[in-house]
């Protein structure tokens, strides 16, 4: 069983790397880019017999994969 977890910075949290990418793109001539924010995602391979995978994954997000002070997460089962 596979799952994907997306972790994004909450609105209002500073994203220096996103800003740098945006600056880089605009200096390369991509004037149409008006904003960039960077997130990360996890491709997780789960044991097929895993119980309550969604609940467990959300727990992993709260505990480790996301820092809920600044990040929000979304779990997708494939």
């Amino acid at each position, binding site marked *: 069983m596979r799952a994907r977890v997306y972790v994004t910075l909450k609105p209002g949290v500073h994203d220096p*790397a996103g800003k*740098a*990418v945006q*600056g*880089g793109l605009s*200096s390369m001539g991509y004037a149409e880019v008006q904003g960039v924010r960077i997130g990360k995602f996890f491709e997780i391979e789960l044991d097929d017999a895993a119980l309550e995978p969604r609940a467990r994954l959300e727990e992993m997000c709260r505990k480790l994969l996301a820092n809920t002070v600044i990040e929000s997460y979304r779990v997708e089962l494939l």
Partner: protein
Amino acid sequence: MTPGTETTITDEIVQQHGLSPDEYQRILKVLGREPNLVELGVFSVMWSEHCSYKSSRIHLGRLPTTGPRVLIGPGENAGVVDLGHGYAACFKMESHNHPSYIEPYQGAATGVGGIMRDVFTMGARPIALMDSLRFGRLDHPKTRGLVRGIVGGIAGYGNCMGVPTVAGETRFDRSYDGNCLVNAFCCGIVASDRIFLGTTGNVGNKVFYVGAGTGRDGIHGATMASTEFGEGSDEKRPTVQVGDPFQEKLLLEACLELMQGTAIIGIQDMGAAGLTSSSVEMAGRGGRGLLLRLDQVPMRETGMVPYELLLSESQERMLIVIEPGREQEVFDVFRKWDLSVAEIGEVTGDGVWRCTWHGDEVAAIGVAVLTDAAPKYDRPQAAPAPHPALPEIFDTDPFARLASILADPDISDKQWIWRQYDHQVGTDTVVAPGADAALVRIKGTQKHLGFVVDCNGRHVYLDPFVGTAGQVAECARNLACVGATPIGLSDCMNFGNPQKPEIMWQFARSVDGMAEACRALDIPVISGNVSLYNETDGVGILPTPGLAMVGLYEGPTPTIRGRFRSGLDVILLGAPGHGWLGGSVYARQMGLDRHGSPPPVDYTAEAALHRALRRLVAEGVIVTAHDLSDGGLLVALAECCLDVVGGRFDAELNAGALYGEDHGRAIVAFEPGNRDRVLAALMGVPYRDLGATGGDVLAVGGRELPIAAVQAAWGGAFEGWLGGAGSARA
């Protein structure tokens, strides 16, 4: 059917493995049969330039490699020099040029990782790193990205390992446009009676694999480094290895922990050509055979086959040989550090290197066939046509060029680079980057090690013998400026295609120049590395024999610095010089950098100068010492001033006097009250009064520049060019 044993070897397959038809015939002869595909792969890496040194070996033998302090010279993973009182320094420099050009961040990172493994394999805890970098022109489209990626990769790996990067050098030249150089140096400290070697001991000893699992990284990496770049080299890209400094940090600590005990008979890192070359080298040194059960190798990916396992260059792995009965100690330590550990084979008595896969034999080759029988070439040499003479330069106002020379990419401030390196971790860095040489203390002793890495490729290009000898002198001079006496040298010979007689000539002459200077100055070469085929589409790099020198200073930590402060007298030590401009930064700014000849070296005068400098530092009678090299006298004075303090100095206002790069000179500054003690310490070395520090202008021969302008020219150039957003890639 066992994968890799049934394929018929065709000419095409031989060629894809980078072996010439002659070399394949040699394989048939020494093996006495046709190799299978696995064995062919093994030959291709073992007989590659990178592993076999087939073009360079006969020349390296001319280097002086012994001395009263040398405990281990070239031939092991790194050389070892005795420091006294039970301490020894273990060091080596190595290139990672081709991988860094293809993937700058990972290429440079894994270069740093590799050189650290070479050092801690010997039982030494790494205490210092250096890096020597070469890039193309600033306005070449690839240069900026290469600088960012390579510096980022070195920082990423070295910082995570907790080993300070204390010195380095960075130069730019059009010849590196398509072939950057990344040379990494590491030094560790080891107890002189606890040095570990890559050997096998007795028949029946067990072979352990420890560290990270094996994936499909960098297969053919060793062959790649031995082939000229050109059209189509992009196809080799998937061979890039990704470094994992975290795993290596664990591997370092686990290895050093196991080394506290007596379980280890031999230990060898897996570097270029991975499991193959590490196991063959161990068997070779031990004079034994080896049996490897490849199916027991920890794997990171599924479906891997013997060919891949043998040729993978996955990082952060080691082979360990132990006596039977000590297995549990190995398991305990590596499991404590959450690392893979597996028993994969044993030492045999038949001198054959043998691999099996689930019980079936997939390779069986005599160890000597892979090592001693490797081809050795005495490739033809030819001196190139003489370089054009340096024309007389008519410059009505050479002083006015100071700002542009300070902003020259080879001269200007490289803080942007070394601020990304943790240069303090370990809390022993006495003299940090930005000085002539770094100085690192050894806690609990009065010993300090000086570190410098240097190469002036313009000088070497103009005359490989004299240019290389001059670099040896300059390295020793840099060490003397922090009070250290040279104890050993590691070199990294970066040259073009050795199949071209002019390149082979450059290489041989450079080796001879290094050998002469090392003999004259009494410095053994204890380790090194050769990187050939550094060219793109037929254009070779400047010959670049990177030299990393280590020096020893014993005594209370010195307070020497490279900057002036107010109220000091300044003198120039050494012969005044001839105003030698061949190969100088000044000549390059005039578009004449491939003209003339480099400055000659006077070993006797040089040695006397170094003795005097060391004594001045040890006696604590000088505040500042800085040697004269790139940019000559005026640049040296400017560098001592920067934004700290100005000064008024005497000098003739002609280009040779201001910017000549004659060897054998240094400036020192001292409190006027110490003059007598300073002069007494010179022991006959000639000197000349230059002037005194103070004020906020740099005044020379009646001309002047505000020190703010000196700082702006020197300090702003490099960072300004790199300006803009940081890299999006981490």
